[in-house]
């Protein structure tokens, strides 16, 4: 692929988004059909490209002024000013479609201010709705269009004052968190005194009060963990809920203890603990951090997961698998947060997609969460099988336990396996391997995964949370199976 250098930022001449990709990201068939009607120059003005992956144009819709549409060929990101509740809307799809077909000429030009503004917002993390990422980044920020941060001149005195204010605020928050942790411990002790057999039945009511207390104590990460606890328990079979409550409350105490003793922890575990409690690291600081773990390679999308959080944000997780076996994490997860109302409902990546990129990992004893620092090859639909390591389920479980020993409050852990099969006991499905390892599948997958029962063996990828396995991706004799 040809490339050119412009100053500090390396720019690739991007391949257009493929029609398959457009089809995959379309919210429904009606949107595709509606977009098809717009794939013609009439009705459009100023269709242009900057030659570096940005395309834009204005489309005359039913409103008085034309809709401004911009899309990124790098990651199929998009923005349109139309009021449609579908994401992407027909205008965004049509713009990508015209580019993909190549029948309509895109004028080469510099991006106008409204396009630059959109790009800046993606870069700075102001995001779709201007909401902060509750876990440290920014809404809609895994946009892959990374660029050097804008350096602004500041008055040294003002900067010193701001730094002092930040330090004061940090100290106050530390104190508040420690107070909150003491309350948390007391609350857990009360639950133990009362007995945890009935905890799951009243978890909603019991957790709400302490979660609120932790919000007040500015330990938002812990608050969110406790807020989600009832749902996690209810997702389990009834007989497993009591022991799960012991595990979950035990982890909360472990986190509280680790936070109190963070001075003696390794730097990675220290970062893990603070992040779990609620401290955040901005996207910019991670991208500019010299010591941050950066891994380049060819990545394949193995799963996309959409979860709704209690704070009315949607968490879109994109799990990536690195194809080469060079040193460094093999799996990464990109996390985007979008508003529940008015945001896309799924990742713009599709399982199987392939992209070349450099990823920067948040510091952790077991690094998983990452940001895209640079895209070298835009994501494209790829039908080729993943080269998964020849690893049995039992070896994957050993790895999980190793990770659990390093990060005791670990939640979903990626598991790749070869030669496993799906088996059924009553209504329940189990991933099983000949070496005796077995993982129960989530009940929500019992329908979608049932056709895999017909297969003798398959390779795959999934997420294990210690209770239930969520099968995300399977490579089989019948082709690729992907979780809905």
């Amino acid at each position, binding site marked *: 692929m040809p490339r050119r250098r412009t100053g500090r930022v390396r720019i690739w001449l991007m391949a257009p988004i493929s029609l398959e990709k457009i089809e995959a990201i379309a919210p*429904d068939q009606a949107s595709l059909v509606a977009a098809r009607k717009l794939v013609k120059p009439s009705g459009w003005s100023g269709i242009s490209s900057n030659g570096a992956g940005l395309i834009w144009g204005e489309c005359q819709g039913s409103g008085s002024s034309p809709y401004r549409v911009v899309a990124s060929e790098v990651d199929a990101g998009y923005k349109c000013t139309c009021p449609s509740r579908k994401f992407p809307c027909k205008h965004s799809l049509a713009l990508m479609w015209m580019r993909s077909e190549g029948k309509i000429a895109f004028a080469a030009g510099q991006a106008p201010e409204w396009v630059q503004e959109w790009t800046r917002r993606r870069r700075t993390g102001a995001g779709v709705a201007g909401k902060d990422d509750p876990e440290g980044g920014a809404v809609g920020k895994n946009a892959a269009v990374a660029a050097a941060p804008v350096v602004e001149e500041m008055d040294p005195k003002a900067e010193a004052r701001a730094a002092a204010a930040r330090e004061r605020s940090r100290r106050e928050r530390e104190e508040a968190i420690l107070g909150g942790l003491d309350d948390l411990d007391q609350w857990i002790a009360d639950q133990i*005194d009362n*007995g945890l*057999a009935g905890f799951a039945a009243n978890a909603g009511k019991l957790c709400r009060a302490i979660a609120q207390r932790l919000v007040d104590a500015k330990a938002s990460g812990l608050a969110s963990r406790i807020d989600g606890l009832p749902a996690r328990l209810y997702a389990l079979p009834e007989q497993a809920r009591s022991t799960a409550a*012991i595990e979950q409350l*035990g982890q909360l105490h*472990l986190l509280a203890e680790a936070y109190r003793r963070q001075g003696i922890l390794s730097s990675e575990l220290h970062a893990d603990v603070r992040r779990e409690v609620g401290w955040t690291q901005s996207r910019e600081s991670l991208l500019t951090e010299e010591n941050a773990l950066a891994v380049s390679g060819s990545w394949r999308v193995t799963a996309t997961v959409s979860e709704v959080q209690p704070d009315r944000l949607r968490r879109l997780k994109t799990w990536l698998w690195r194809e080469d076996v060079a040193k460094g994490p093999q799996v990464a997860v990109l996390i985007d947060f979008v508003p529940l109302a008015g945001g896309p409902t799924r990742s713009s990546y599709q399982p199987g997609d392939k992209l070349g990129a450099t990823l920067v990992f948040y510091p952790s004893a077991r690094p998983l969460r990452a940001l895209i620092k640079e895209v070298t090859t835009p994501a494209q639909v790829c039908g080729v099988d993943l080269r998964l390591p020849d690893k049995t389920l039992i070896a994957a479980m050993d790895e999980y336990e190793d990770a659990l020993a390093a990060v005791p409050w670990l939640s979903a852990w990626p598991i790749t396996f070869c030669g496993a099969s799906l088996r059924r006991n009553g209504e329940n499905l*189990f991933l099983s391997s000949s070496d005796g390892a077995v993982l129960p599948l989530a009940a929500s997958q019992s*329908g979608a995964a049932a056709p895999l029962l017909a297969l003798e063996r398959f390779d795959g990828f999934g997420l294990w949370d210690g209770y239930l396995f969520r099968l995300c991706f399977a490579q089989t004799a*019948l082709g690729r199976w992907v979780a809905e």
Partner: protein
Amino acid sequence: MNAAELKTRVVPVLMSGARRGLLDTELESLGGDRDHALLNVLSLAGQALRFTRPAQPAEYAVETWPHDERPILPQTLRAPILRLLERCTEDTARALALALETRRLRPHPFDLPRMDGFVKKHADRLGVTAQYWAQRETSPQAPRGYFDAVDLNAETWTEAAPRIRAKFLREMRKRDAESARLLLEKTWNAEDADSRAQLIAAFQTGLSAGDKDFLEKIRKDRAPRVKAAVQRFLAALSGSAADNPALAACMERIERSKSGLLKKRQTLKLELPATVKDHEAARWIQEQFADVTLAELACACELNDSQGLVDGARKDDNLLFALAMMATRERRFELLETIADEIPDAWGKMSDSNWEDSSLDDSAERARWAQAILRPKEWLPSQPFPAWSWLHRQMEGPLPTNVMREVLASKVWTAQLEEENKPGTELVQVFCALCPPELRNHLRSQLEPLTADRNDKGLMLLEILDSLEKTA
């Protein structure tokens, strides 16, 4: 304390509550204050549990997925088909199922959960894997079988869906009526009412004196539909209208008279009961004449042949409609044609009557029926969708090209395409389902100006059908 002890000694206390001091000895050994020790014990027990690997179930169910000879449909069509089936009409789904059956293709097994409703409804057309999928939730005691229609034989015929079994039996009756009867006799007592009604209808083909004993045995069947059919067959065998109560009931409603100056001709008129309202007439007639044959009726009316019935009923649309249904049932397409000349809306009335059991055997028979009864230049339904949908159910495929060409050129249809009177997506879809391959481009050009919400599913169906037909 090790992990095993934590699980056996500590976990039960954590469950029941530590207030009673059951753990105090263990807590003292951990040092520090009680609450803190309690929390540490909780964390330790929790981690011990987290490192416990899931246990193997005592046993796994044995999966017996059938071997499916049919090839899986092309990969490129998987996504379009799934999108097509999202909120499409039943006609579109049926057209797709019929196309897959004709090409002997099957859905990809991984798509079965995503098209579950479609598979359950049309399993008998989609191959044995689909049949297995559709039946996997039935109780283990319920009879199951996964046989493609073409693979059925005298050993396996009981294990297919009732529709396929009835077809198998009809085919066998054509070849060897006696063997077919013996086959049915063996399983008759194990059949449910719906199956009995579908299977006994096969006796229409090749009815002979050899069937009499069996029919006598089952003439008191509990299912009224079966009972009526058996009586009709017995009456036909005896040659006496008196033996067929249905015929007697019909004759009570038929008024016969003579008309004409030079040559007196018999005139027939069907008197509907006063309680039957206009909109109920078609259904009443359908039910009334369901178990009467043309020959019986002609005989009862003292006419030489069925054509005489048509001539006599020429001025009575209701009786002509009854004759049209009887002619359809008996595959008297030449007679049906003369009836349709008199009442071109006969098929519309049939759809009004909810008559679903036309028992037309194969596509050639259905094409002949359509050509005989459809008169697009003279009549098409003005309340269109349900009648077209009924027509597609009877046709189980596209209309003959010449008939569809007339339909597409008809005023009723072209008026639908006008600006102020655009057809809904349901009508578009059923037209696409009824359209033969030769006319798809013509229909596409007619549908193209419609908005996407009206034409998208129809156009998708046409595209998919085209692609399926190109599949080797």
